[in-house]
């Protein structure tokens, strides 16, 4: 009988407390949102399942938990801790991304820069709330709306916060269709939302080949700390655009990115062990993360309005919201909000320009923060 009781006490049921249950509920919500609501399923399903994996109560010392040296999960987590996975994901993103809308209308790149205002405002906000500078930098980058960048920077600056920051970044990326529209409508008039963009010019294949090389050299000379992310992003894009390495590009945008997403999602999810995750800091991170997204959206929209003051060729200010990278969700949100005013106004193609510029912008912002705080 005593043996039976001891056995029962050693099962997950015996060792679980309410915190595990809370986290398991969070994991289930992620899985639900991914499968039933199609919110970023490729990310939320692995992360959600990872949260379940990380919150099965296990004996410390048996080499099972993600934070225990020698455990399988710990080996997989190495790629997160050392910032190996995010650049590999950027390779895939580069091999998927078509920069032609950005090349056709370069001034829209500035909207991608304006949206990075969210990163630095949140950095200040986190310092104000008492976070250490390195932690504040990692929290700020949530506003970059780029999961891999957020994980990369927090792994470098504040490894103990990777879990909550990644969860906050991906949650808000999935919630872009909920967070952005009210801010976009609040800051624009109906007339502005109705602005139609002229057709972009055609971009030659030579321009598309030269862009990743020039973009890489320029951005990395300016912010060398962004090298791991931007090198892979532009390299992936060169593989795609030069056409002669089509096989490599296809592998990068399918096999490589899928494999890394699985491992990254699962381990980031598993890193949210209740005892590490459910702290006051995590709540602060979530609040600041939401603010960060809002400020980034507002920054992009307002900057587009400022640009319109000085330009004859008016920009639909909704495009500013796509400067928050979250590719391609924020561009889709721009299309959705624009379509509500005028169903025949197609903004998606135009919104992709600030959207992909936002990816570059957030990587530069991460590089800058790392070089200042690292």
């Amino acid at each position, binding site marked *: 009988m005593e043996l039976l009781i001891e056995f029962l006490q050693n099962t997950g049921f015996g060792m679980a407390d309410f915190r595990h249950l809370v986290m398991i509920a969070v994991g289930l919500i992620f899985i639900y949102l991914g499968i039933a609501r199609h919110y970023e399923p490729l990310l939320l399903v692995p992360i959600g399942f990872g949260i379940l994996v990380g919150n099965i109560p296990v004996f410390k010392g048996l080499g099972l938990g993600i934070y225990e040296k020698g455990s399988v999960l710990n080996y997989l987590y190495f790629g997160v801790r050392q910032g190996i996975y995010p650049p590999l994901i950027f390779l895939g993103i580069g091999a998927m991304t078509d920069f032609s809308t950005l090349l056709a209308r*370069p001034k829209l790149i500035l909207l*991608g*820069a304006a949206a990075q205002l969210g990163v630095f*405002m949140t950095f200040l906000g986190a*310092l104000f709330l008492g976070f250490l500078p390195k932690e504040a930098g990692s929290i700020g980058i949530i506003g970059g709306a780029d999961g891999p960048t957020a994980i990369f920077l927090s792994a470098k600056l504040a490894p103990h916060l990777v879990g909550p920051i990644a969860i906050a970044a991906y949650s808000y990326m999935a919630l872009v269709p909920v967070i952005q529209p009210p801010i976009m409508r609040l800051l624009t008039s109906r007339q502005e939302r109705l602005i139609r963009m002229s057709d972009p*010019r055609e971009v030659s294949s030579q321009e598309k080949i030269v862009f990743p090389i020039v973009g890489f050299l320029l951005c990395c000379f300016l912010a060398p700390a962004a090298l791991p992310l931007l090198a892979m992003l532009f390299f992936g894009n060169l593989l795609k655009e030069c056409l002669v390495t089509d096989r490599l590009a296809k592998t990068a945008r399918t096999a490589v990115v899928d494999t890394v997403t699985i491992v990254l999602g699962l381990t980031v999810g598993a890193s949210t062990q209740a005892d590490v995750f459910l702290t006051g800091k995590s709540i602060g991170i979530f609040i600041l993360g939401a603010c960060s997204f809002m400020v980034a959206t507002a920054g992009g929209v307002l900057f587009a309005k400022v640009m319109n003051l000085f330009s004859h060729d008016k920009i639909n200010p909704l495009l500013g919201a796509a400067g928050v990278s979250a590719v391609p969700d924020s561009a889709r949100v721009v299309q959705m909000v624009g379509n509500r005013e005028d169903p025949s106004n197609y903004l998606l193609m135009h919104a992709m320009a600030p959207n992909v510029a936002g990816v570059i912008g957030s990587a530069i912002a991460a590089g*800058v923060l790392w070089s*200042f705080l690292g």
Partner: protein
Amino acid sequence: MDGFSAISAGNGWLISALGISVVFFGLASLAFIISFFPRAISWWNDHAQTPRYVFPLLRSLLVKRRRKVPALLGSGESHEPGEIDDAEEDLRLLTAHMGEPFKLPRLIEMAEQRGLTRVHSTINRLIVRGTMVGGDDGLFRWTKGTDKKSPVEKKFEEIE
């Protein structure tokens, strides 16, 4: 420590100001450079030919473009026979430097970069009337015998 003193102590103001400036400067200079891409690439295409041909070709193209582009192909559906012939000459000039057989999409791209209008339908007409033919290898050639002397040769004779 928290509040504004924490921001000052962590160099928050300076880092934020410098950070956003670097991001803006980086992306703005990228936008600036990108805006020169079309011109730079067109310049490169014009200069990447065999040196022997560069100046005569450039001169011929400049003269030609000024003379011909407006009349080359109008906006109407059909092409005047003479206009197609002029366009053919331009295209032959380009293919002389690309080498024969040539890739049709590349020819279209180069022709458009040089400001020729309605390149697609011109090429369609040339193929339909048999002046240009596509081989089983997916490459295109000019039909032999339609022009005994290549237009490039003629052009050089004119220039010289």
